[in-house]
């Protein structure tokens, strides 16, 4: 059992596994994305209040979910790398950061596009928006720290600590911001707080959430593959692999 586990976390084995799995997840992403987009843009009925413009929910909400989910994955992977010195965990944590930052940015951008017709303004200092913005800053700080070191191992471990500190802080930030804005200004329009959402609208939303998850896995696998090749560029299996590619072309 332990031996199998060690095999699984060896960079070479993980690389081969990633090569094997990438196309599966890529196809899964495409299928789910088509199904979710068709369901969301065509199949789901228009909202009685917001009309057609509510359909941005199918990008906005899944990316907001992903932004937090990826931060947790990143921090946990970093922690695993820190405690058990597993190289793969470091690689995964590092590859998560730019994807998470992109999803956070996407959630903010689609949110402000949605806010313009609904609230009449691109930006309000609403609790959710503000804590999402702070999350983006946390991601950017993590990436800045990650790139400040020359040594990959030190970079991975130092930024893992930062990610864990951020993980402890996220609930505090979230609730403090919520408290701040509810005391400052009345509750802002917030569609997801409505008691329930119609089932025809919900199903495409869930499919889109799964599609985003599959997309995330695909990109993490792709990024980890390049990371591993860079990390292990001096080992024999990588040079063998590169030679094979060279002789083929």
């Amino acid at each position, binding site marked *: 059992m332990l031996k199998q586990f060690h095999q699984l976390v060896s960079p070479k084995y993980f690389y081969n596994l990633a090569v094997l799995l990438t196309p599966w997840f890529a196809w899964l992403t495409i299928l789910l994305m088509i199904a979710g987009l068709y369901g969301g843009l065509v199949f789901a009925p228009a909202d009685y209040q917001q009309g057609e413009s509510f359909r941005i929910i199918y990008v906005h909400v899944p990316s907001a979910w992903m932004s937090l989910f990826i931060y947790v994955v990143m921090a946990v992977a970093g922690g695993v790398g820190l405690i058990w010195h597993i190289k793969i965990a470091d690689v995964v944590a590092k590859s998560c950061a730019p994807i998470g930052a992109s999803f956070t940015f996407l959630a903010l951008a689609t949110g402000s596009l949605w806010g313009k017709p609904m609230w009449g303004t691109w930006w309000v200092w609403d609790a959710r928006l503000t804590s999402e913005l702070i999350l983006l*800053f946390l991601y950017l700080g993590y990436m800045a*720290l990650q790139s400040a070191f020359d040594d990959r191992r*030190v970079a991975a471990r130092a930024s893992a*600590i930062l990610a864990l*500190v951020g993980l*402890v802080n996220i609930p505090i930030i979230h609730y*403090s911001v919520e408290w701040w804005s509810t005391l400052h200004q009345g509750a802002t329009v917030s569609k997801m707080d409505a008691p329930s959402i119609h089932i025809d609208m919900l199903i495409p939303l869930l499919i889109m959430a799964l599609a985003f998850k599959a997309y995330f896995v695909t990109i993490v696998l792709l990024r980890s593959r390049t990371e591993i090749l860079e990390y292990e560029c001096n080992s024999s299996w990588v040079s063998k692999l590169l030679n094979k590619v060279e002789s083929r072309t």
Partner: protein
Amino acid sequence: MTSYWNAFRVIFLRDIILASRYRAELANPLIFFIMVIVLFPFAFGSDPDLLRRVTAGMIWITALLASSLSLEGIFRSDYADGSAEQMVLSGYPLTLLVAAKIAAHWCLTGLPLIIIAMLTAYLLSLPTQALQALFLTLFLGTPVLSLIGAIAVALTVGLRSGGMLLSLIILPLYMPILIFSMLAVENAMADIPFDAELYFLSGMLVLSVTLAPIATAYSLRIRMS
């Protein structure tokens, strides 16, 4: 037991003595603080009503900046001359030694900053009922700034892009403290009780006293390896 206390005291006194030999450096964050505060009336105009409303916020934002700038030096000389390595190798728990350094740093920069902040609050005509709230929030909040900041300093000490990177990392982590402090001051100005905010700040202080020295020690170890 006593030897642990001794170790804590030795490091604490060492930092106090070292700082007292470079008194000018000690005054720098305070002068910076006053100068930035003086910039605000130039930017907003000297209308007393306006200043009264934004004084507490100005003081807190400036305190955040002063803290992140002064923190930068907390491990710098130790890292450069190798005494940080000696601390790692000393056999005493590094967490304890780091806690002593943070405590010394807060006594040297946090405490004087609070006094100066109270004086400038008078200068900027903060209502008297808010003075107590401002004092309490600064008293509970600035140690948290030092404690959280120390983790980030330990991670970034000796790096090329040190200072800027440090601010980038710690300012998002500072936001809850700013929010609760400002809520407390605002409530005090409206004559509403502000116990809840103080409890939150105390909670964050307890949490960071418990966890931050451990994380700082761990970060220093990583940087030494």
